[in-house]
């Protein structure tokens, strides 16, 4: 392992590591635009220029491998001058539209301009005018003026998806990123170019102008869209006490971005997972417990369900179909509950759609199918339960979790299916939820119904996982379980802790006023590490 000195500090890193990687791994910030851990090295932004002793010129940290005895200066006057120069060059033709740019707040150009720029511009000529808001795909909009030509998006489409939709056009300062004629940026991972873009040149149609990023409360979680289990960060537009803007800060999910986990998803997520919150938010949901289609008091509905379940279990005619999207703890809890009642035939639903692709997408849409199979046994299939129903061995069927996620759910952006197969089994909501109601957080919803043919009574308790809440929280408290065990008279526990900031006046701290408590709000550095902007330190 070569030993070298970076800014007076002697370090030892594996051969082949670049100077930039060595610095980032040790928490030393070297500015970089075009460098990305998951992509090839382009070396074109030139902001990571650093000084290596005995080299006549500055070298780029992202491309220069460490060498034995190397002495590196990342903060010398020469380096500072070069960084300021590159910043100035990048900004001379960059439009001053930060106030309306979605990237503002998490823009590398802004950050480095503050940290390394001069603060003033010596450029007096008119800036180049290029095309803005070009529709290049179903999810992505391109602004050529903002582009700094780091080529990350091009490299992503060439190297990761291997679809090659994007390319450079023209030459010199007129060179611009664009889409090849007759093509659309519509590969299943197109949204990643938006995360990759260090500036606001590529924006996600679904997030564009929805909110400012500093209003987002970011929570690390796992995507439940398929068996891949991509690590993601969910950004929720938190309600603001003092905000006058309506609509953008409604406690709803505003975006989902990937969180780095090289062993699962790398730096990427698929568009379907990225936009999965849209489906969850648009889907009709039960506002109250129902028994036989009739709205019923919650306690009564639970009692009705409990009675039916107990009776069915006692008679040995209970079947349970478990969603493969339930977390293992929930599956285990249900198994315990049912066996305590007298046992029943368990089966895990199979959510298969499409095929595995070479990157992330899995045909198995049940995020936890494997976990459920481990708990319930490999023989516990939906088919076996269905057969038992057909043979009359099961007279009462309990369906758990995610009935709105049929295996035939169309991907986001696809035309709605005309067949009834994809239709949600839930009735449409009767009235939109009131604001105060929605704010209280998710409710365990349930439906108890008896089939008209009288052959078998079925109880469908639908407990929809609230996507707004972090996965960690859902594991902490499982509402359906609590409901069943709850001693009579106590109100159901809330899913998430009520935020102190919401009910308080503006006297609260700044972060509280922004609707997220200081303890839950991840630091900027943490967020950046999640999204891959910063390498996590490796030992």
């Amino acid at each position: 392992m070569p030993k070298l000195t970076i800014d007076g500090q002697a370090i030892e890193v594996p051969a082949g590591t670049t100077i930039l990687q060595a610095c980032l791994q040790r928490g030393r910030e070297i500015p970089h635009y075009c460098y990305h851990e998951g992509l090839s090295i382009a070396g074109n932004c030139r902001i990571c220029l650093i000084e290596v002793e005995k080299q006549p010129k500055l070298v780029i940290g992202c491309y220069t491998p460490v060498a034995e005895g190397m002495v590196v200066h990342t903060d010398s006057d020469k380096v500072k001058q070069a960084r300021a120069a590159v910043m100035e060059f990048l900004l001379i033709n960059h439009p001053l539209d930060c106030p309306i740019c979605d990237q503002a707040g998490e823009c590398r150009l802004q950050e480095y301009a503050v940290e390394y720029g001069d603060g003033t511009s010596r450029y007096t000529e008119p800036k180049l005018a290029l095309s803005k808001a070009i529709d290049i795909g179903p999810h992505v909009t391109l602004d050529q003026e903002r582009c700094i030509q780091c080529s990350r998006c091009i490299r992503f489409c060439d190297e990761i998806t291997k679809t090659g939709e994007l390319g450079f056009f023209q030459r010199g300062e007129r060179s611009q990123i664009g889409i090849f004629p007759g093509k659309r940026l519509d590969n299943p991972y197109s949204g990643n170019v938006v995360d990759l873009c260090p500036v606001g040149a590529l924006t996600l149609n679904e997030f564009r102008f929805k909110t400012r990023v500093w209003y987002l409360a970011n929570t690390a979680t796992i995507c439940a869209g398929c068996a891949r289990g991509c690590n993601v960060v969910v950004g929720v537009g938190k309600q603001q006490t003092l905000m006058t803007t309506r609509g953008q800060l409604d406690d709803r999910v505003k975006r989902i971005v990937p969180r780095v986990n090289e062993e699962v998803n790398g730096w990427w997520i698929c568009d379907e997972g990225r936009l999965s919150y849209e489906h969850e938010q648009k889907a009709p949901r039960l506002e109250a417990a129902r028994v036989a289609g009739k709205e019923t008091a919650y306690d009564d509905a639970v009692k009705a369900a409990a009675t039916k379940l107990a009776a069915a279990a006692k008679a040995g005619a209970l079947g349970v179909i478990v969603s493969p999207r339930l977390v293992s703890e929930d599956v285990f809890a249900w198994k315990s509950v049912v066996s305590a009642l007298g046992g029943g035939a368990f089966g895990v639903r199979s959510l298969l759609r499409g095929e595995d692709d070479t990157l992330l997408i899995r045909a198995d849409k049940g995020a936890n199918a494997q976990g459920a199979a481990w708990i319930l046994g490999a023989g516990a299939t939906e088919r076996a339960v269905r057969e038992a129903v057909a043979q009359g061995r099961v007279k009462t069927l309990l369906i758990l979790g995610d009935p709105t996620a049929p295996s035939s759910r169309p991907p986001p952006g696809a035309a709605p299916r005309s067949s009834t197969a994809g239709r949600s089994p839930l009735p449409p909501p009767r009235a939109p939820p009131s604001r105060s109601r929605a704010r209280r957080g998710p409710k365990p919803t349930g439906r108890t119904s008896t089939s008209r043919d009288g052959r078998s009574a079925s109880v469908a308790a639908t407990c929809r996982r609230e996507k707004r809440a972090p996965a960690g929280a859902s594991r902490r408290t499982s509402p359906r379980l609590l409901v069943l065990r709850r001693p009579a008279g106590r109100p159901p526990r809330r899913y998430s802790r009520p935020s102190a900031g919401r009910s308080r006046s503006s006297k609260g701290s700044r972060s509280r006023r922004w609707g997220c408590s200081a303890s839950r709000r991840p630091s900027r550095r943490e967020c950046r590490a999640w999204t891959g902007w910063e390498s996590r330190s490796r030992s």
Partner: protein
Amino acid sequence: MERILTRNVDKENAQHLAVYESVGGYQALRKALSSMTPDALTDEVKKSGLRGRGGAGFSAGLKWSFMPKEVDPKRPHYFLINADESEPGTFKDRLLMEKDPHLVLEGSLLGAFAIRASVIYIYIRGEFVHAARVLDRAIAEAYAKGYAGKNILGSAWSCDVYVHRGAGAYICGEETALMSSLEGDRGYPRLKPPFPAQSGVWGCPTTINNVETVANVPFIVERGADWFLSVGKAPKNTGPKLYCLSGHVKRPGVYEAPMGLPLHELIYELGGGMLHDDRPLKAVIPGGSSVPVLRADECEVDLDFDSLAAKGTMLGSAGLMVMDSSTCMVAAMARIAHFYHHESCGQCTPCREGCGWLERVLQRIEGGRGMPQDLDLLLSVSNNIIGNTICALGDAAAMPAISFVTKFRDEFQHHVDAKACLTGTVALQGVR
């Protein structure tokens, strides 16, 4: 002196194989294939002191010696001929290719033999339509006579030759951009290392030489390295050299002379003197537009790599542009900046943004809209480009800018202060 490289250019039908063979053509190739090993050939060229004629002046033999000594069958060696002659003021390679294509071809084959290449690509500038046709015809003749193709001249060595026409980009004369372009990609220079000898075109070991460089090789093989050392200024500036003379001289053109020809001799003897007798010499750009300019008082210099380097400039591609006293240096520099602004590939930031900025400031000064801080701004922007780019194009734009502004600062200052040109002393267009 004896004309060496240009010995055939005046002959009728010089581009035909029969004429070339009549003066001993392809004897060097025959000699090398029959009596020399590739390493011996490389050593001979190294000994001759032949330096690359494309601009950088790197030892050709040394460059060849970087190639692997064994050929991996999965990674064939490639020999590229850089015929993308685009440097403003340079037109020597075109002459060789149009008038004596077999010389270029024989030199290329010798180089390919030395580096154990099995394919030669001659990457020719897109505008050189005629030269490309001439070369194609010459290659067909060479194939027919067994000088190229399978088992050349009965030896075990086979080599194919192709002409690849560029599409009109100056940057494709940069060796790694040329390789990108040859592979079918955008002509973007590549990061180095790896150098071409390790991983060049299609990731294979590659050597790339200028047309004029390889044209010297047959003579080195035929007459020996010692003869080559006797021409020019031994030990480091040897051999014959083609000088491209243009600008305010009576007889512009390509002149062949031993390396180290005094600049005055080129202008006043070979070039016939200044174009107008009443307009004295003001400045000379000695090596194509990308090198620093020489003032008239700096022109007591020999035209070779080291003498010009001592004067703070470069021999480059030996494209000499002579400017007399009527030349507005601001206008000249603005024109040069326009070229580099237009030709910057746009890959890396300093060159992409800086070249346009330089041109705009220069146009402003030229148009009488200059501001007092503009001259320092020009120097600052230029210094911010130099050394910070992927390839040398940024330097090529910034070096002349720095030299023009520092050496002719009074002219630039006059443009800014008086809104007038020292040479014409007329009020400029577009005065605010």
